[in-house]
């Protein structure tokens, strides 16, 4: 394995960003209440490591539960929608309308139904992330090459056969691709809900810190959130690569 500069690029860019940030804060002596320098953020992160860990964990598991629900439900609904044109035509406007509703507006309703806590966060994460999965799976199914379908149908294949042999394998790259979008959205959903109504989680922590004027801690919360997001995205990207390598042949041949 050879060492390439390209592989170090993500680290260089990330570190460069923080260095630039630090420099700007020092040169213009920006008030840490407006924009804390990275050094302050990191020291806050170390000082409040305990609460950060605990709340990060809460956010992580609520996000993941919501995300997994979205995966299951999204896959199922995507298959149903992609299966039949009538269902597709019927459900699509409803889904688009549903997706257009800002999820922030739904949180108060969820709180009335389920009370303050993890459940609204899970449901918000679920609501915000299932849509891209449904759309992608349905698209994968709906774009089966007509010739390929003809080949099978002329042999007497049923609709189920066509779906099992072509539709579903064909939709898998779309599905795994959509997971990368869905997982980041799930974090957004969970944190939005935590910010509005929760007793734990990074969103809750940041709201609390904000009302105590602890800006470095707020930013430390954002940082933790970003790290979780990148981590889960990487897991989804890895899954995508493992499960549907055939769809990424250009990088495999390179």
């Amino acid at each position, binding site marked *: 394995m050879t060492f390439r500069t390209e592989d170090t690029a993500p680290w260089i860019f990330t570190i460069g960003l923080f260095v630039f940030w630090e420099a700007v804060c020092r040169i213009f002596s920006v008030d840490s209440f407006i924009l804390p320098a990275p050094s302050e953020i990191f020291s806050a992160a170390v000082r409040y490591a305990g609460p950060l860990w605990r709340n990060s964990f809460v956010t992580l598991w609520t996000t993941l539960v919501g995300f997994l629900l979205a995966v299951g439900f999204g896959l199922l609904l995507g298959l149903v929608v992609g299966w039949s044109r009538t269902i597709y035509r019927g459900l699509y406007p409803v889904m688009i309308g549903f997706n257009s509703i800002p999820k922030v507006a739904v949180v108060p309703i969820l709180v009335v139904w389920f009370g303050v806590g993890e459940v609204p966060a899970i449901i918000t994460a679920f609501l915000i992330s299932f849509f891209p999965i449904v759309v992608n799976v349905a698209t994968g199914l709906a774009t089966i*090459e007509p*010739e*390929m379908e*003809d*080949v*099978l*149908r*002329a*042999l*007497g*294949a049923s609709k189920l*056969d066509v779906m099992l*042999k*072509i539709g579903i*394998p*064909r939709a*898998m790259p779309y599905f795994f691709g959509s997971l990368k979008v869905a997982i980041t959205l799930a974090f957004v959903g969970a944190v939005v809900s935590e910010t509005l109504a929760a007793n734990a989680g990074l969103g809750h922590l940041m709201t609390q810190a904000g009302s105590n004027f602890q800006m470095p801690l707020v930013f430390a919360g954002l940082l933790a959130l970003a790290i979780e997001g990148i981590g889960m995205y990487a897991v989804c990207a890895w899954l995508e690569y493992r499960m*549907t390598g*055939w*769809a990424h*042949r250009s990088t495999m041949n390179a």
Partner: protein
Amino acid sequence: MIELDDVTLAYRGRTGPVLALQGTSLKVGRGEFAAVVGPSGCGKSTLMKLVTGLVKPTQGRVLVDGHEVAGPVKIAGMAFQNANMLPWRTVLENVLLPLEIVEPYRSKFRAEKKQYVARAEKLLDTVGLSGFGSRFPWEMSGGMQQRASLCRSLIHDPSLLMLDEPFAALDAFTREELWCVLRDVWERIGFTVVLVTHDLREAAFLADTIHVMSARPGRIIETRKVDLPRPRDLEICYDPRFSDLVQILRHKIAEVRQA
């Protein structure tokens, strides 16, 4: 083997009904190699769908093997201009696909897989793809994919092979090579072939009978026997009888296109 009796097919287009075929009659005998040529958009592909039972005629009757076609015929193999290999399956798995669908192979697929694999490998061997079974389609050239596609259309021993411009996307050398592959397989197994093409040389080289279609709405306006002796060699393309035939067909199609 195939009989189209005054068949008309209309389908609903964006701007009202479109007449794809009108009053088409066609007969193809058992074991015959028939070619259908015609200007583009004349409903050649519609003809394929009618014969394989994918669409029903608006009027008239389609008979295959003595029975009126009411649904998918199940005895046909199909290949298209695009090889349509499934990229997540290896070449061998692609070739085996019809056996996973069509009876009686379907119910025995698990039990007799070894036998079927051997059969697929033998078929791959006849088209010059031995040893390529474990490759993925996208690791192969267009010509090789098309060979594999031909194997897939033949794996279930179809008594009817429907080819829709299967060699149109290939370069001239590969195309002629595949003509010979198809010729050899056909001469060995002796199934019925309907080859839709716009390549008149291809039709003249391979077919027993050439049917010329008119512009849309399509109709068979001329049927010509090819009396070139068999077995045919690529050399025959330089035979004056061959050139004459191609010339006549070309004129016929030019006429139709102007009409």
